[in-house]
């Protein structure tokens, strides 16, 4: 992993995309793992403690009983960082709502923006485009491209066109192997997409 790059991971359901992200984050153990961040060897247990990677899991992870406006100060103490999230056009209208009352798309968008603003040098996003409305998808892609100037990002999502639009490098996971892909044709060749 290197800062300044957006890395896409594709694969059928059950191919191990989310498992791979959890292993990198240190919440699942692997038989063997060699993790290097900016060419420096890291043990998985250091990832959370040293806040090296911010991780958007596939499933909702915010407390349902809290309002959006109360979650933001839990993540950011500085006024500037808080305002960046508070005044995001898609989040500003949700601040009075409890997280449990948000739609799946609203929640996913809020979660993604929230963790992306953390100072961690790397970001792993598991299905960030899931259930987003087109305008949110567009805004999120622009946002990720902007923050990729200072962060390294790994994305996995079945919305493959949105992922391919912003990634600099991609792989597809197939039968436990990672195969480099550069285009939709490569995804078809590796049976992630149908050939028709």
């Amino acid at each position: 992993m290197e800062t300044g790059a957006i890395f896409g991971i594709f694969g059928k359901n059950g191919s191990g995309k989310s498992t791979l992200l959890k292993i990198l984050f240190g919440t699942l153990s692997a038989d063997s793992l060699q993790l290097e961040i900016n060419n420096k060897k890291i043990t998985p247990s250091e990832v959370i403690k040293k806040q090296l990677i911010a991780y958007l899991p596939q499933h909702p992870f915010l407390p349902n009983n809290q309002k959006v406006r109360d979650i933001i100060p839990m993540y950011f103490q500085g006024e500037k960082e808080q305002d960046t999230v508070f005044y995001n056009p898609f989040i500003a209208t949700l601040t009075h709502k409890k997280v449990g009352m948000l739609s799946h798309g609203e929640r996913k968008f809020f979660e993604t923006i929230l963790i992306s603003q953390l100072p961690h040098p790397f970001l792993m996003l598991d299905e960030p485009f899931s259930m987003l409305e087109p305008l949110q998808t567009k805004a999120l892609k622009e946002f990720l491209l902007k923050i990729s100037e200072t962060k390294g990002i790994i994305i996995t999502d079945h919305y493959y066109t949105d992922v391919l639009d912003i990634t600099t490098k991609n792989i597809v996971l197939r039968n436990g192997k990672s195969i480099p892909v550069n285009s939709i044709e490569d995804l078809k060749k590796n049976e992630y997409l149908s050939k028709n």
Partner: protein
Amino acid sequence: MNIRPYWQYYKDIFPFIAGFGMICCIATSVLWGFGLFCTLGVLFGFFGFQVFKNDQHYFYYNLGITKWKLLKVSFIINLLVGVPIFSFLLISFYFFFGSFTIT
């Protein structure tokens, strides 16, 4: 240290801790129940959170807070805040039922 996430975690595990403490008070004695609330209660809450709200651990991981750290800080919060709240619950229980045991 930003205490807000720890406080949020404690609020989420408190129902498990209080429930455990109450059951211990009823099943054993007030003193034993109170002691178990102060010591094993947080551990019970920790496992309750693990079973019912496991995905929410990522909320804390992203802030660099490990499960072990959550457990340690919750133990301290429980002694400082939970004990007075639990005492209040016990007194309320006593006034409502007239004793600490249900027969």
